[in-house]
């Protein structure tokens, strides 16, 4: 009786994993495949852009950045001669890095109207346990096969939303503007460490209370596509 149960359990697990893995290769949503094909055109790119950090407890000015990408999922945002603040683990989860792994299964979740566009909502569930994301929802325009929004939940770094706008490089599926939204945790350092004993900036305090969501916005000026990017950059 006991042995039977174990055999049954192993059998179920085996079947499930077989079903799931076969699903990954054969039953993906055709729209995702279309998007993936478009993205497959890009082996690598270097993009110049301007980054804006909008986090309640951060005062930073606009900064020039360079974004490097290489297939399948290498991505690096470098600020030109400066310090950059990026959502933890979030930036690497762009469409390219999500889809290029091909290790996911898709679930169609209807359509939704977003910014005047009727978008298909498709959920992605990774099939590889080693990937650091748990689930990702994509809002895709079925007409031009462009992803306008993603919402990804990661294992360790919380949830992120990425909103995209497209321009000249739409044919490659590359956005002209990307906005990362993420939840921020409280920031507080004891006075004893910062040695600040004066009055705190009251406006900063108010902002910290009302806005717990941070965004990082990158506006791309131009892409250099498929000209090769050395691995040493990442």
């Amino acid at each position, binding site marked *: 009786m006991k042995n039977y149960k174990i055999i049954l359990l192993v059998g179920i697990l085996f079947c499930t994993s077989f079903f799931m893995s076969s699903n990954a290769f054969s039953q993906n949503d055709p729209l995702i495949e279309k998007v993936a094909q478009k993205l497959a055109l890009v082996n690598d790119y270097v993009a110049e852009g301007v980054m804006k950090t909008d986090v309640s407890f951060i005062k930073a000015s606009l900064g020039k950045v360079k974004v490097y990408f290489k297939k399948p999922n290498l991505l690096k945002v470098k600020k030109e001669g400066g310090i950059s603040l990026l959502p933890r683990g979030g930036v690497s989860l762009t469409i390219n890095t999500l889809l290029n792994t091909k290790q996911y299964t898709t679930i169609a979740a209807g359509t939704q109207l977003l910014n005047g566009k009727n978008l298909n909502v498709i959920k992605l569930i990774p099939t590889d346990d080693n990937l650091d994301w748990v689930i990702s929802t994509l809002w895709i325009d079925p007409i031009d096969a462009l992803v306008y929004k993603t919402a990804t939940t990661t294992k360790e770094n919380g949830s992120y939303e990425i909103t995209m706008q497209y321009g000249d490089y739409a044919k490659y599926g590359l956005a002209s503007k990307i906005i990362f939204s993420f939840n*921020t945790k409280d920031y507080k350092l004891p006075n004893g460490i910062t040695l600040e004993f004066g009055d705190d900036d009251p406006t900063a305090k108010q902002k910290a209370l009302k806005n717990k969501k941070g965004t990082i916005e990158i506006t791309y000026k131009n892409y250099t596509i498929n000209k090769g990017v050395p691995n040493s950059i990442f």
Partner: protein
Amino acid sequence: MWSLINVELYKIFRRPRTYIAFGAVAALIVVIQLGLKIDGNSYAAFLMKDINDTLTVDGKVLNGYLICYILLQLLLVHVPLLVALIAADMISGEANLGTLRLLFSTPYSRTSWMMAKFIAASVYTILLLIWLAFLALFVSMWVFGTDDLFLMKSNYVVLIQQQDVLWRYVGAFVFASFSLLTVTSLGFLMSSMAGNSIGPIVGTMSAIVFFTILSTLNIPLFTIIKPYLFTTHMNNWKEFFDIQVNANNEAIKGSILNIPKIKTSLSVLTLHIVLFVSASIMIIKKKDILS
């Protein structure tokens, strides 16, 4: 008057004691720089614990600009004590030595001598500050390189672009000179009231330590008197490193968050300097020189 200042400067810089402060500043700075060079990253990681929960900070956080900021935070509490060592000795030291009567029987008024002494003590103070700036800023820039200044304040983080930093340090050092000159004038006042140097030196140091503690304690009773304490204002050089943001929460390059605060502090400090120096001149003018 120029010859009196000359004489006073000559005396200050011929005394071995003068160089103790320069040596002490150098030793302190080098020790901290060495510590941060060896173990700075863990210090930075400790500071950025909260930030790292949300964001990845990419770049050379621990660069010369931040090192200088850390050094100033630490040292501008201690340098006043070194300033007191000379300033509080300017008059009482000579009274104790017995040379004050030689000076005051020359054909110059006591007011002239006092002004010359204060100016000489101020020159010493400023030179000490320049020495500090050289070691803390330029040596740090050389050793640690430069990058954006990533400042972690109590409630928020300020990221100042590299090109926007140096002028803020110039401002901060000018401000710090007012802070230190307030200490100089306090030491000077104490010095005018005593016949030996130990009392005024210890007195000045104690006053600074005492008022600094009052300034830093967040107890309601002290909060009322805080705005009137010079020690509260002495720390406001940091205001040069806080930046304004626009409606989109973008930092405005070249801006200072609270200019009125800097102006108020400078006025309060200047007022203290004028009061302390005038009081010391009044005291010395009326005093019988018995030493």
